């Protein structure tokens, strides 16, 4: 009895240690963001929260168009997510529940595209954007990513196992058209899968760095990640200010994650074990 208890305690000690390691960067970021750089530069460094957070925020706002870039990032992340959810689930439902000529060939093409690294398209894609006049515009970030193979594949797996063929047939017999069946039958039943795909897309889009760096050529019109790297490059010695920017850039992600964490984790692991 006691031996088992000790083993349980040791187990939780290791798990809690890992938890502290994982969360430490956030704590230290907050400590840096609430102190002056001089406090951070002391030896030994200051390990407690300070009262300089709002000064640091003001410095960030003085040095980069923070709210503008946060608004840009929000526009990109939200519209990409909504488009992806709609287009991917519609395509996935079609693949999962209907037969039509060319279905298998189209699906194989879809799978093959997942192996292609983004760099393979980056140079000509930039030329395409220039041709369309989208260089410097948020469209260049939203439109190319409005539908993706991963999401279609993932939603298809879900639809195949969660919606019975009879349900689709019954809806059709009741006078629901193809789109009506998608809207009234498929979408409501796919909420957990949509939640996962939505957060996954939102986080990915929020964090995208290389393509915005390339295509958003106007320094006043960048996304948060690019603004942050600019801030770091120009003011890298002012840690407190830069880390305040980093902290602010993470807050929306933490909120989104906190709201949907359970669903997201369930989805993230399900895909791996099934696939």
């Amino acid at each position, binding site marked *: 009895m006691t031996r088992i208890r000790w083993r349980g305690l040791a187990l939780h000690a290791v798990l809690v240690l890992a938890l502290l*390691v994982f969360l430490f960067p956030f704590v230290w970021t907050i400590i840096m963001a609430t102190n002056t750089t001089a406090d951070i530069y002391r030896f030994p460094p200051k390990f407690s929260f300070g009262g300089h957070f709002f000064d640091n925020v003001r410095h960030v706002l003085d040095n980069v168009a923070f709210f503008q870039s946060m608004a840009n990032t929000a526009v990109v992340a939200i519209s990409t997510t909504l488009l992806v959810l709609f287009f991917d689930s519609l395509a996935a439902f079609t693949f999962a529940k209907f037969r039509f000529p060319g279905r298998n060939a189209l699906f194989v093409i879809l799978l093959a595209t997942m192996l292609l690294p983004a760099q*393979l398209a980056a140079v000509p894609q930039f030329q395409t954007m220039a041709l369309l006049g989208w260089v410097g515009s948020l469209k260049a970030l939203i439109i190319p990513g409005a539908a993706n193979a991963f999401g279609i594949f993932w939603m298809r797996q879900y639809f195949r196992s969660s919606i019975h063929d009879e349900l689709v047939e019954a809806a059709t017999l009741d006078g629901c058209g193809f789109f009506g069946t998608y809207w009234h039958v498929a979408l409501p039943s796919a909420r957990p899968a949509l939640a996962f795909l939505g957060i996954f897309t939102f986080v990915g889009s929020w964090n995208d760095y290389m393509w915005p760096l390339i295509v958003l050529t106007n320094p006043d019109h960048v996304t948060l990640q690019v603004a942050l790297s600019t801030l770091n490059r120009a003011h890298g010695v002012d840690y407190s200010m830069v880390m305040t920017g980093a902290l602010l850039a993470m807050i929306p992600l933490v909120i989104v994650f906190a709201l949907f964490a359970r669903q997201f984790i369930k989805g993230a692991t399900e895909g791996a074990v099934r696939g």
Partner: protein
Amino acid sequence: MSATAAVRTRAVAGAPTRRRIWSYWRFYLALSPFYVLFAVFGLYPMLSTIVLAFQRWDGLSARKFTGLDNFAFLVRDPTFWQALENTVVLFLMSTVPTLVIALLLAVMLQSAVRFTSVYRIAYFIPNVTSLVAMAIFFSSIFSTNFGLVNAALRSLGIPQQDWLGQPWGIKIAISTMIVWQWVGYNTLIYLAGLQAIPKEQYEAAKVDGAGPVRTLFSITLPQLRPVVLFTVIMSTIGGLQTFTEPQVMVGNSGGTGQSGMTVVLFFYRAAFLDNDYGYAAAIALSIFLLVLLFTAINWRVFRGRGEDR
């Protein structure tokens, strides 16, 4: 679509006539966004990348066909080999510890009874934070004079190190960040895999007198192989495309001795800083070949022979 049409289309067999294909238009319309976007922003650029790899072009003057020149230059470019080596070294330095730690944590998490969902959520958080912000964080803690790592070393009486000014230090800083970011994700994947293993197998092993080590190697690991394959392939694809961490931590130059120069950073520089588009296209093709090669190797090693599932 009329009430019976959808049902009827499902029953249609044999070679479809032109009129019948037309009756499926709703399905093709539903699929079209992905394929149209892929054609315009994926397939077309990829095909032009292939053409571009055989040309010399600075984005302004006329394109010039130069045959295999870009590739000939690439294989003789020491920076390319350096970038390739760095990428593989960084991949190994980050993936191996990540997956080993993740497996250990997953096994422990499986035997823990309480607070498991708290652990899961906390472990996952590093994976959903701003990459750039965290790269700045890691470069700050590895900073020479004021970094936390050196402060810790000094308090232990160990002389401080110039982490981001040394080739090995740069690699350690970058891979530390990657490990921190991906351990939790892989832990949860392994945990899900572990929970999918039938309990009867463990009971049978116990009856047969197998110890914990024997059980690990004869039941847990073999059963977990498909999940391990998944994590290795995901880590490979991600690892071969490492860009943000070195770019933010040591800059476009790749840092001291170019030891943070990865193939994607090398590609980025050639294309968007040097405007050497033909050369960049050749690099992009080499990245693609690299991803294919590594995926094939992983597949062989982890799937083993004689299994076709």
